[in-house]
């Protein structure tokens, strides 16, 4: 509310705070105006991103003149009083009345406070403590009996609430309600018995729950992950970027003794504001298990055994030399831009192969073309700010809450504050789309292109497409074609490194910066003798390994289970003459390797990501621990040296410098598109008022449309440029236009619902934020917030399949609880892609294909969602 008020009213008013005049937009609360005047008013309940409530009364000020010549007889709460033209405000610094009022409130806040600072996680960074030190009495006048509560109680597996410390500011409750939309938290009881609570059996399992710990102004809320782990004054803070997804949240990482203790949401108004998701906040201990790699491994007599770096590098060089250029490189989607670039150059300039891909996931040739065209001409990228302003946002093949949670929060904010209309083309209404109040176009997987083509998408519409559109024929083409209707689009990969890897050229169809394969500009940097044959994508590499046309594989950070056909991938690696694995943990792929080279974890390297907006998001080195593995770039450089072709750089900075020095293919207007979208590493200490003091990034000027046609084979429409009916590939579903456009290699056709066999439904699936991903290992309290695992059918489909009474069903041998969900599209069965012990891909199930849904004969007692197995025991 405050934010909208501030932005919607350019009209300014002048107020005087402690004698300092300041101009603020009309509608600004006095507490914000004071900040702009350089006066900090103490507060507990006020938060710039939450609606004001005026509960704590700590922010009382005297207003001798409300702007109309008359003053208020008693002190006013500055967080709920709006600045008016000519208003005079006196804070505790200049008014005895205000000072007495603030001291009075502070004294009252402390009478029932346990003051157990020595055992409180907040001690040392506690606003209440700070304020008591700054303004409180030395000796309390209260000598009565304090209200007692039993000490901490869980609100979820992750959150602990100490009600004695709670100052009832309701920040947590308002966050849950206003920001996350997860309303399990509430205040109950009244008077001094008031307390934050959840309903019995309904823990606060928000994906965003950790934010409440961060904004709690006292030590009332603590996390299972961090409580009692450190004292804030012993921690060293580093500002970096979260590697959880492609949202690009700024992150503050606190470490001590070479170990990260906690991660907090950074303060980046243009991206994550001051929030992050629990995956980003708590999911950082996966590399602390016994499978962590620190020394190279070498296969001897069929066994992986520890080896020296010298030995291992020599063995790797020998293995790769034997394969010549018949080497495929697969990098996964989580590498920094710099590391991806190192692989891009290593593959081409050192190995002589264009077979490199970052897509360790389902993909299609259509997607390859789509991405190539996008990288060649990104046009004017859609940004978070654009989502704020959009009239309509259409989600297709994308569940923002699961795949880019901060995008979800931004959409929800726009829905609440700007009445944004969200439409989702999806197989069912997810909890996330329900919280966005989204209009659901229930769609069987594979039908996305047709649905998109049928939508009215004028100016003011933005279509956000997700990575699983690659599995839906024509969908990405239809996405790009949105510009022809006047709309804009963005592509949101799930993984943080994909946009950067595309730019870095870790991609079969492009060299760095969108340069075509064989580019002169790149050759000037990389040297001569570069491969010119088109590269293989990751699926083609797997096939080529299996048929012997590729002899060796270099895999970095790839999970077999992430590939659409894990069995085929395993077979490919087993068949390969030589497999080199660059890894942090002994993954399945590493176990199949001949040489395993350990690399430094992200927190020990630096570099950058590009988020979905293409914003450059710096990754800072958090820990510099002596004696741990080298960075991946350095390992590749060493290996290149061993192969006799120097890589050309050894550090992330050098890699970035070289990558940035490569020009993108000529574009007419170089309007410094990146300047505004680049996020500088901000100071560790957040500015007092992010909403007002941090300038919103200026809109990126639209470069004129690319003159260079996209690569002929994969022609699709240029991204978000002026509509061009000639260049843009028409939607597949549009038969008349299809004839005119170049053919798009379509992925395997999805099942035609009409052609389903008896007992079958079309499989729809996506990955939820918290599943059995290995990156979430060792953090059971985080996994406990995962959604209940269930297969879903709508009532009609369930009836047609004879499943009205079934409690559990099997899909391809995997057993699920069955939930009858009226929002699921007809003839579709939805199930999560992965859950502990359940992996659709491993079971050979492909989304969009028919799957038999059969009841489990003896229905066991329904699994209580709260007691869902969440430990890695099953992972």
């Amino acid at each position, binding site marked *: 509310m405050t934010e909208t008020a501030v932005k919607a009213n350019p009209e300014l008013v002048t107020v005087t705070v402690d004698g300092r005049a300041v101009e603020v937009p009309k509608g600004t609360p006095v507490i914000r105006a004071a900040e702009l005047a350089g006066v900090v008013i103490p507060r507990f309940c006020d938060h710039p991103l939450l609606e004001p409530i005026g509960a704590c009364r700590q922010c009382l000020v005297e207003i001798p003149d409300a702007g109309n010549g008359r003053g208020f007889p*008693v002190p006013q709460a500055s967080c709920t009083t709006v600045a008016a033209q000519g208003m005079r405000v006196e804070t505790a610094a200049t008014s005895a009345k205000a000072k007495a009022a603030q001291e009075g409130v502070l004294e*009252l806040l402390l009478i029932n406070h346990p003051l157990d600072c020595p055992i409180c996680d907040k001690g040392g960074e506690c606003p209440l403590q700070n304020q008591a030190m700054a303004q409180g009495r030395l000796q309390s006048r209260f000598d*009565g009996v304090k209200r007692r*509560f039993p000490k901490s109680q869980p609100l979820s597996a992750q959150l602990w609430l100490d009600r004695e410390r709670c100052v*009832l500011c309701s920040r947590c409750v308002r966050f849950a309600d206003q920001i996350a939309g997860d309303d399990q938290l509430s*205040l109950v009881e009244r008077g001094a018995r008031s307390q934050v609570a959840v309903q019995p059996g309904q823990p606060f399992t928000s994906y965003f729950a950790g934010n409440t710990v961060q904004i709690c102004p006292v030590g009332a809320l603590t996390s299972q992950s961090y409580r009692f782990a450190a004292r804030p004054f012993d921690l060293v803070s580093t500002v970096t970027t979260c590697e959880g997804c492609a949202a690009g949240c700024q992150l503050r990482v606190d470490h001590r003794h070479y170990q990260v203790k906690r991660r907090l949401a950074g303060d980046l108004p243009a991206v994550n504001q001051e929030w992050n998701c629990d995956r980003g906040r708590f999911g950082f201990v996966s590399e602390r298990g016994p499978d962590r790699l620190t020394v190279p491994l070498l296969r001897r007599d069929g066994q992986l055994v520890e080896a020296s770096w010298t030995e291992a590098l020599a063995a790797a060089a020998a293995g790769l030399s034997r394969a010549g250029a018949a080497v495929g490189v697969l990098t996964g989607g989580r590498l920094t831009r710099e590391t991806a670039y190192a692989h891009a150059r290593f593959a081409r300039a050192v190995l002589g192969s264009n077979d490199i891909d970052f897509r360790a996931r389902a993909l299609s040739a259509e997607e390859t073309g789509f991405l190539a065209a996008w990288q060649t001409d990104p046009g004017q990228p859609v940004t978070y700010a654009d989502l704020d302003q959009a009239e309509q946002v259409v989600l297709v093949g994308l569940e923002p809450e699961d795949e880019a949670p901060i995008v979800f929060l931004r959409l929800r904010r726009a829905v609440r504050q700007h009445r944004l209309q969200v439409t989702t083309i999806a197989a069912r209404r997810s909890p996330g789309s329900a919280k966005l109040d989204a209009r659901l176009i229930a769609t069987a997987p594979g039908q996305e292109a047709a649905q998109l083509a049928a939508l009215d998408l004028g100016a003011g519409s933005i279509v956000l497409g997700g990575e699983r559109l690659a599995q839906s024929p024509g969908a990405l083409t239809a996405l790009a074609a949105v510009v022809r209707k006047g709309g804009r689009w963005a592509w949101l990969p799930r993984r943080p490194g994909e946009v950067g890897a595309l730019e870095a050229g870790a991609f079969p169809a492009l060299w760095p910066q969108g340069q075509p394969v064989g580019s002169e500009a790149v050759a000037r940097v990389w040297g001569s003798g570069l491969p010119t044959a088109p590269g293989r994508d990751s699926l083609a590499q797997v096939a080529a390994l299996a048929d012997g046309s590729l002899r060796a594989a270099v895999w970095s950070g790839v999970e077999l289970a992430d590939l659409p056909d894990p069995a085929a991938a395993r077979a490919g690696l087993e068949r390969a003459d030589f497999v080199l694995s660059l890894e942090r943990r002994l993954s399945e792929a590493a176990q199949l390797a001949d040489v395993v080279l350990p690399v430094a974890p992200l927190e020990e390297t630096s570099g950058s990501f590009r988020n979905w907006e293409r914003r450059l998001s710096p990754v800072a080195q958090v820990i510099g621990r002596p004696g741990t593995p080298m960075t991946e770039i350095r390992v590749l450089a060493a290996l290149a040296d061993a192969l006799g072709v120097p890589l050309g750089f050894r550090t992330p900075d050098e890699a970035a410098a070289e990558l940035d020095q490569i020009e993108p293919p000529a574009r007419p207007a170089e309007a410094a598109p990146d300047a505004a979208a680049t996020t500088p590493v901000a100071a560790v200490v957040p500015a007092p008022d992010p909403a007002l003091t941090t300038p919103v990034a200026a809109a990126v000027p639209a470069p004129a449309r690319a003159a260079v046609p996209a690569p002929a084979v994969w022609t699709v429409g240029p991204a978000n440029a002026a509509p061009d009916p000639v260049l843009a590939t028409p939607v597949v579903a549009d038969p008349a236009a299809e004839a005119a456009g170049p053919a798009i290699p379509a992925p395997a056709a999805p099942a035609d619902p009409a052609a389903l066999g008896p007992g079958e439904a079309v499989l729809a699936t996506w990955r939820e934020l918290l599943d059995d991903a290995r990156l979430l290992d060792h953090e059971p309290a985080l996994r406990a917030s995962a959604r209940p695992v269930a297969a879903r059918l709508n009532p009609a489909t369930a009836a047609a399949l004879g499943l009205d009474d079934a409690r559990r069903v099997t899909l391809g041998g995997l057993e699920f609880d069955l939930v009858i969900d009226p929002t699921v599209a007809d003839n579709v069965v939805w199930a999560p892609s992965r859950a502990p012990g359940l992996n659709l891909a491993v079971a050979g199930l492909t989304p969009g294909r028919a799957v038999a849904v059969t009841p489990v004969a003896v229905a066991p007692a329904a699994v209580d969602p709260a007691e869902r197995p969440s430990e890695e025991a099953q992972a």
Partner: protein
Amino acid sequence: MTAPTITAPPADEQLLVPVLTADWGQPESWKLAQYEARGGYRGLRAALVRPPAEVMAEVKDSQLRGRGGAGFPTGLKWSFVPGDLSPKYLVVNGDESEPGTCKDVPLLMASPHTLVEGIIIASYAIGVNQAFVYVRGEALHPIRRLRAAVAEARAAGYLGTDVLGSGFSLDIVVHAGAGAYICGEETALLNSLEGRRGQPRLRPPFPAVAGLYAKPTVINNVESIATVPAIINHGKDWFLSMGTERSRGMTIYSLSGHVRHPGQYEAPLTITFRQLLDLAGGVRQGHKLKFFTPGGSSTPILTEDNLDIVLDYESLAAAGTMLGTKALQVFDDTTSVVRTTLRWVEFYQHESCGKCTPCREGTWWLVQLLRRLEAGQGHPGDVDLLLSVAQSINGQSFCPLAAGAVACVTSAVKHFREEFEAGYHTPAWEYLPYAASAAFAEPAPDRSQPARSAPDPAAPDQAGAGQGDGAGRSDEASQTDPAGRTDEGVTL
């Protein structure tokens, strides 16, 4: 405040003017037939033939002021609601939970149709098609009577889609509260009515702009609305002929405590406290007045110095107190003011909604200070501390409940400081034995050394912080166990 001018002293020295209370003694006065037989719904018929704006003007010009406590002009409040917006709502406040206040509940018992008629006229004037009455939940019998009255009115065509053939449509929902004093505060009431937590809302937006379900809403006290039919019936000039210049008309005064004949006394706003006290037969025989509240426990107390005060808004404001709900609680010279104050503050501590710090924490502290003063275990300086804590609360809270909570403390200390200071050494029950002040009880056994938990007939809520769970248990231990050991469930 300037001294009020008495504009229309009743010529015949007739002090009481029973209008709302006129028929309370009639058999089955709550039935429609009785109500109609005595002229009921005439006001409605008169209103329906006039344009709504004219009806609103009549009420506005009568200068009727809200009877719920704040005395805001009723017609003016109605006029704040945007005329062109729909839907809008009328919400009648029958939460009546303030200690001492007891006028709305009897009215609902004895003459619910007066309120129903008032609601229909008010709704017609404002352009409301859906009205709500929020009645204190404990008042079960009045709720039944009101519901029955609404049903009767509906059956008789006074409610429904075409009220008396006028084309105007209205329905009334009678909602039972769930036992919270704060839900009498109008925005907390709206929250409660919407099914939310009963806590006051931030203003702006004001209810007239965004009230119930974020729609324009008028909130009025039961008595305010029940007065409307009489104004329409007799005309504004009749109403203006009573009362003082800025406090017009008649109103119900509720006398309770140490008076011979406690009850409801309906009189013009020119009556003095002495006149009312005389009408009620005076203070208990053999005793004299010690102090009284003019308008419920939230209004600063007055003493015999103020016997001749005119009971209108302005005179009481000039005396540093308020007309409030016109609940005159009378206490004679047997009463311990320390004990009385403690009971009131215990009530506010119990009823504090907990939203804001000064009220939630401050009342907690005040209760402890007052308890030890009552027990004669006060520390020297406690009275000043009491005033200082009261000052930290007063004017700094989110809503006026907290101001009400400290009004009795500051005014009682002002008038009876030495009695509080006696709490440094002498228990209040020794200073003024409690049995003597029990208004209606048999002479009680000697309770000069009462056990803390012994039930006190005059103060049933004596136990603990008053935060018992309603099943008779109390959390006294949580405040008195020096080790602070508590046991979840019994305590907090």
